[in-house]
């Protein structure tokens, strides 16, 4: 594909026969993220799922755009398009965004980025691998991409390329998570505390947490613990009412400050962040508690300054104490670790981009025609040799005639699809036909290696796809059949029966809509 990797000459393709391939189509990413735009602007452009799908279908209505998907999270708003004429599309899309944001287009112009071709694919893969996230290695983005893709599929905004692309992106995200340690170690104080607790206690569901002091930090850590499945929570605070309030928020119970000792024996995790100027928990207290609790492990997280827990506690068997500095040191170390792992993740991304690009290149018309002819010719040659051997006693001239028959047969059969493919080559939807053809004839493509997402039936093609195919064939096909002239979607132009046939063939596995489509065609005929 011409101009891949840069903002190529958008006008190429559609009207030039030598540069037909898939009509100069490219994967394009237009967006803003936490790296480029202020949170105010991102807020204005944040879409919920429904809005995102609506925007994507609007974008698809653009004649240069074949597929569209909107990814909107708190850290980024990105529009992914499979489109021709990148420059034209870009200015229109940015203008559209500007009108939504209410800001001037110029303002958006400076903070938005546009990527095309391999760099757009690479960007998506980096996003999925959470290399572009605010906190590198966070896991949420993968789920967000998955949702965005599912919604877009249901909304009929994607087709062959994006179904493949986003499945591939999810694979990349998963691969990076399993093969590198990028998301492995916690990089915030509270999550580091939870991680440590888990390293000591194992699964946290059945454990009990005691919170000393109703401060903000204890609340944050408690939130993390609850997310890990902790159910039993005690809150102890000097002022009982404040403790009660916090306890209620987590479905725990408040306990009196002077009953601390007996709760030390019950709890497995103690989070302490009181404002007390002296130690609140002493070694002797914990020794006593350990006796009562039969030496089951007890994990202290002291996030108070000055410290609440006597550091001596750490010397007791099966008691573990971490203060805020210890946790900070762990977090710092983990951040460094993540950066190291990010380099490995980048290598995986680069590898996967290459795989995807190879597949995408396979969607170009001319190589596909060559490959189709080559494969059919190979079949013909093999079959001919076989039969020639079997008819060994034929004379040269007859053999030549048999050979001519086989060659003629193949050429005749391949003639029509070749001509048709060349006709639609310039069209933005050509790749849909190419993909169908590749699949029907089982043409191999190098990009579809082991690591790549498996080929999926075209079922994922959304119902809207067929309508687009109709429009497509309606405008360009010149076979002069008026068979489907009554079809409202053909909008009065010359409708090619073959084109429609192809569209139905592509749509056949889709189910309901495909059936309806052929039904309608039947009616029209």
């Amino acid at each position, binding site marked *: 594909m011409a101009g891949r990797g840069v903002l190529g000459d958008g006008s190429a393709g559609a009207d030039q026969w030598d540069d037909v391939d898939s009509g100069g189509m490219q994967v394009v990413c237009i967006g803003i993220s936490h790296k480029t735009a202020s949170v105010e602007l991102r807020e204005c452009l944040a879409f919920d799922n429904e809005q995102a799908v609506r925007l994507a279908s609007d974008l698809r209505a653009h004649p240069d755009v074949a597929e569209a998907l909107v990814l909107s999270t708190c850290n980024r708003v990105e529009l992914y398009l499979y489109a021709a004429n990148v420059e034209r599309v870009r200015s229109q899309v940015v203008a559209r965004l500007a009108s939504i944001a209410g800001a001037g287009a110029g303002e958006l112009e400076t903070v938005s980025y546009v990527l095309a071709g391999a760099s757009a694919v690479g960007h998506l893969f980096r996003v999925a691998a959470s290399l572009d996230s605010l906190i590198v290695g966070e896991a949420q983005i993968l789920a967000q991409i998955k949702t965005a893709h599912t919604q877009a599929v249901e909304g009929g905004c994607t087709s062959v390329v994006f179904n493949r692309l986003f499945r591939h992106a999810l694979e990349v995200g998963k691969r990076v998570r*399993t*093969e*590198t*340690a990028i998301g*492995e*170690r916690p990089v915030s104080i509270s999550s580091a505390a939870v*991680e*440590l607790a*888990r*390293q*000591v*206690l*194992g699964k946290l569901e059945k454990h009990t947490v005691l919170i000393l002091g109703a401060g903000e930090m204890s609340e944050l850590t408690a939130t993390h613990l609850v997310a890990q499945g902790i159910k039993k929570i005690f809150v102890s605070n000097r002022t009982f009412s404040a403790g009660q309030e916090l306890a209620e928020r987590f479905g725990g119970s408040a306990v009196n400050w002077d009953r601390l000792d007996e709760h030390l024996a019950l709890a497995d995790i103690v989070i302490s962040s009181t404002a007390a100027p002296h130690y609140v928990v002493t070694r002797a207290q914990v020794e006593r508690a350990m006796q009562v609790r*039969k*030496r*089951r*492990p007890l994990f202290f997280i002291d996030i108070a300054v000055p410290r609440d827990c006597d550091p001596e506690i*750490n010397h007791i*068997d*099966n008691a*573990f104490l*971490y203060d805020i500095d*210890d946790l900070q*040191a*762990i977090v710092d*170390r*983990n951040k460094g*670790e993540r950066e190291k792992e990010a380099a490995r993740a980048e290598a995986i991304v680069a590898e996967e981009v290459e795989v995807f690009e190879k597949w995408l290149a396979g969607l170009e018309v001319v190589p596909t025609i060559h490959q189709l002819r080559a494969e059919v010719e190979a079949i013909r040659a093999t079959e001919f040799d076989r039969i020639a051997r079997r008819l060994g006693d034929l004379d040269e001239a007859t053999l030549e005639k048999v050979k001519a028959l086989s060659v003629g047969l193949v050429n005749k059969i391949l003639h029509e699809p070749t001509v048709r493919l060349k006709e639609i080559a310039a069209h933005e939807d050509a790749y849909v036909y190419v993909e169908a053809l590749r699949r029907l004839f089982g043409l191999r493509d190098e990009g579809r290696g082991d690591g790549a997402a498996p080929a999926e039936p075209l079922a994922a093609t959304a119902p809207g796809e067929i309508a687009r195919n109709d429009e497509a064939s309606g405008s360009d096909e010149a076979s002069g059949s008026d068979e489907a002239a009554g079809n409202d979607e053909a909008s009065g132009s010359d409708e090619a029966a073959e084109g429609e046939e192809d569209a139905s063939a592509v749509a056949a596995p889709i189910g309901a809509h495909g059936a309806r489509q052929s039904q309608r065609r039947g009616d029209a005929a």
Partner: protein
Amino acid sequence: MEHLEVIFFWSAFLLYGGAFVLFFYHLLAKRASLNRLAVVAVVVAWLAQGVSLVLRGIDAGHVPVVGAYESLSLAAWFIVLVYIALELRTRVRAVGLYVMPIVWVFLGVAWMHYHAPGRLLPVLKSDLVAVHVVVIFTALAAFVLAAGAAALYVVEEWQLKRRGFDAVLGRLPSLDTLDKLTYHAILFGLPFLSMGIVAGVIRAEKWAVQDWYFDPLVILAVVAWFIYAAFLWGRVVAGWRGRRSAYVALLGLVCLLFIRFVGVPFLSTFHKYGS
């Protein structure tokens, strides 16, 4: 046949070594695929070793428990069997880090004592002897795993206490998991050890072995039994937890290894395993 048996033995030996390298590499730098590969290598090695033992048994015409070569190889095979069962159930792969070197030592020493398969001494021609050995090896396998988990526990606890928490530590199982693993393995192993000792005693009585109860090996076996019984008692009754019980589990293993590598070759009067 003997030739084939040795080839299988060596393939197993090398594969166990490879598995250890993979386990270790995974611990240092997370590579999930290598970890899976390590487990596959262990399983393949175990099968190969099994074939080797079967060939040996057919060749010699008896269960391969005679002599250091056969008995150590069989013991290692049992250890790996228990490890694989454990791995399938709990996915505590890190224990492989510890089990593989032990298996390697066992097989290495076994190889040093390699001898051509031979006939049984008449005194060992008994089902009871086979039961005695197999049961004791099952106990041994469980205790080796218990000690493996205990060793990991001691290292991890020490790291956590001195706040050396890092990615390597994070890939190890939690302290709680290791603690329970040690406990369950010993709980599993002790009945087998008891059965093995009883079978041995019956055997000795039946054949009227003289002064069997003064044999250093028998005394050491009883000591080992008491160590593990103490472990369970401490755990259930006295509330021993964590490091203390881990030390006891390690002490038990030291006792067992002493029995095998000092007691059997140098001290015992009749546990000569056919040599």
